[in-house]
């Protein structure tokens, strides 16, 4: 299985350097890329090899020595394949951290050993908690600059653990001391820190077990209806989409939501090839025994689902606000949930999360990079799940009708 990793932490904590180090030490970097980085290191720096330039690929990033946008890199070891999202640390790019973390199994949160926890570190731990990132690795970096001091490391780990325990959904930290620049505990165990008995980062990433998804029963949000209209497949109607939540088999009884009609699965195709069963994650098309009016946005749900979804037009969701224009009570947006696009009205802003203290306070509006909780009225009923139970059924985005920009990520917690 592919392990999806996102980096997090303040600017200059060494995220890009760490990813560069991982790519370099696993021999994933191609010769021409390395020589390009050597050349760029001379142009943008003091000439010593700057591994961050392996992921900081935009001209502005190289000129300013910062990460502006998420970069995706791929590497494989004999044991596992990895996708790494290197995210920016600046507060103004928190939305990119949310994006990177949303699709990740593991977040590596870096801390500069000299500075300890910063507001950004706390913010990123909070984001990891809110987004339900399954595994969090706390990498205390730049240990070379604190003489590889054990007490410093333990102090930072204790501080981070206290914060992680206080989060709305507590996060378990896997801590380790590293030097991304020198490579200590990245691929090879550090000889400078014999007091650390844990695995180096790569070994940890290769062996760490990702908790499986909850089985809530099969869900299929219809993306597209396949109607060939050819003589050969005259009566074929395939409801195409990605299966989530649980497996599906021919003969299974399903319910169509929000309509409520029932039918039986009589055919499953994956990429046009018939199969008897399908597993979560597979892009399939499903044929049903009955001629029911089903279109894009409808959801097929296993009739005997272990956890039934909720059909509602009033939702309560945690929100990450991503644009300058503020979110205000009474404002209107486009909501995209699964394959349904509808209008949404902000009926209330319940609170704003204070990421530094892991508490919350009342709020009139939410600004760029704020995290909060809102109540929305939606123009049509949605088929929702609690985000922590079934992510695809609990995730949504808000879009600005006027600009088309994606403004928010929503983690649905409940119906009103």
């Amino acid at each position: 299985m592919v392990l999806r990793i996102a980096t997090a932490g303040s600017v200059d904590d060494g995220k890009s350097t760490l990813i560069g180090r991982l790519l370099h030490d696993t021999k994933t970097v191609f010769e021409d890329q390395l020589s390009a980085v050597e050349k760029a290191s001379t142009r943008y720096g003091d000439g010593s090899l700057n591994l961050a330039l392996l992921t900081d690929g935009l001209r502005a990033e190289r000129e300013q020595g910062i990460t502006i946008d998420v970069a995706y890199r791929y590497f494989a070891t004999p044991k596992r394949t990895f996708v790494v999202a290197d995210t920016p640390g600046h507060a103004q790019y928190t939305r990119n951290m949310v994006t990177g973390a949303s699709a990740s199994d593991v977040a590596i949160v870096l801390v500069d050993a000299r500075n300890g926890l910063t507001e950004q570190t706390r913010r990123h731990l909070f984001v990891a908690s809110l987004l339900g990132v399954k595994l969090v690795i706390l990498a205390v970096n730049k240990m070379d600059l604190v003489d590889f001091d054990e007490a410093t490391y333990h102090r930072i780990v204790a501080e981070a653990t206290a914060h992680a325990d206080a989060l709305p959904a507590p996060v378990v930290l896997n801590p380790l001391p590293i030097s991304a620049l020198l490579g200590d505990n990245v691929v090879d165990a550090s000889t400078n820190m014999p007091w650390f008995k844990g695995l180096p980062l790569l070994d940890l990433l290769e062996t760490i077990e990702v908790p499986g998804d909850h089985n809530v029963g099969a869900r299929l949000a219809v993306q597209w209806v396949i109607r060939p209209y050819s003589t050969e497949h005259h009566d074929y109607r395939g409801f195409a989409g990605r299966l989530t939540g649980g497996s599906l088999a021919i003969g299974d009884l399903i319910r169509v939501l929000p309509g409520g009609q029932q039918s039986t699965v009589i055919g499953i195709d994956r990429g046009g090839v018939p199969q008897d069963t399908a597993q979560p994650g597979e892009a399939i098309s499903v044929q049903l025994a009955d001629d029911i009016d089903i279109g894009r946005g409808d959801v097929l749900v296993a009739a005997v689902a272990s956890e039934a979804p909720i059909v509602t037009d009033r939702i309560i969701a945690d929100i990450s606000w991503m644009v300058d224009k503020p979110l205000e009570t009474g404002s209107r947006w486009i909501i995209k949930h699964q394959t349904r696009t509808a209008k949404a009205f902000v009926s209330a802003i319940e609170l704003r999360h204070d990421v530094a203290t892991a508490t919350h306070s009342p709020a009139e509006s939410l600004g760029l990079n704020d995290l909060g909780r809102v109540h929305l009225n939606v123009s049509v009923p949605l088929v929702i799940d609690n985000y922590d139970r079934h992510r695809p059924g609990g995730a949504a985005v808000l879009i600005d009708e006027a600009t088309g920009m994606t403004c928010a990520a929503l983690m649905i917690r409940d119906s009103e």
Partner: protein
Amino acid sequence: MTMIDSGTQATPAEIKQSVAELEDEAITIIREVAAECRNPVLLFSGGKDSAVLLHLAAKAFRPGSLPFPVMHVDTGHNFEEVITYRDMLVEQYGVKLIVASVQESIDSGRAVEETGPRPSRNRLQSVTLLDAIAEHKFDAAFGGGRRDEDKARAKERILSFRDHFGQWEPRAQRPEPWNMLNAKIRPGEHLRAFPLSNWTELDIWRYIGIENVALPSIYFSHRRTVVERNGMLLSVGGPVVLEAGETPFEETVRYRTVGDASCTGAVRSTASNVDEVLVEVAAARITERGATRADDNFSDSAMEDRKREGYF
């Protein structure tokens, strides 16, 4: 088939599974864009990535037919084998083909041929592409771009928003949490969709092997008359004209990418089938663009610059 694969020690079953997951993701993206956009088009260069893309798109709607046309931005600097192959695929899949010609853009004065001894038409493709998108009122164009190809591509979203001028603005990209795609655009704007974003060169070859995706013959080893230029082997004939002091020679080569023939280099290789190519790809120490694209080696940000101008 047997998979000889030294990239990882993954078993054939694991390889099949990981490629199948990439296929599920790509098909989901293709269906989503087809559903959300009014008038999409699939860009087809005849290269291996667009061959895989077309294969996936056909699978996404089976047993129905492809609900959008296919467009080839024709530089006029072609490998003959690729055009033959393109026409064969169009026939086989029964898709509608649109050819947007760079030569016509030049003839009508919309684009100006680069001057100097070695004009490449890579950059000019952007003009022809944007004109064709406007002419046919396409609101989305599927491309075979992969994030592992280039450091600027590594930053691009699955749905890449383009303004009235077709430009990519890396600082103003739309976040895609949970890979949820926002295809909302205003008149005059359009989207580029990259269903293969998360594939690597190795994944592409594995998929080609498992699915028996047909490719132009130049991807496999053959004898060819070439000339060495800036460390790159260019096929003699067509747009590549011998310069003073250059001596052509015969070599056993294959191509790792297919682009404008004037600047796409061949690599020395005896790999004559997918298994042998896979061994080569797994052992390669140079990226496919670095090895075979003269234009990307001109400057550190060549790809970013072209993308900003509306390139694929």
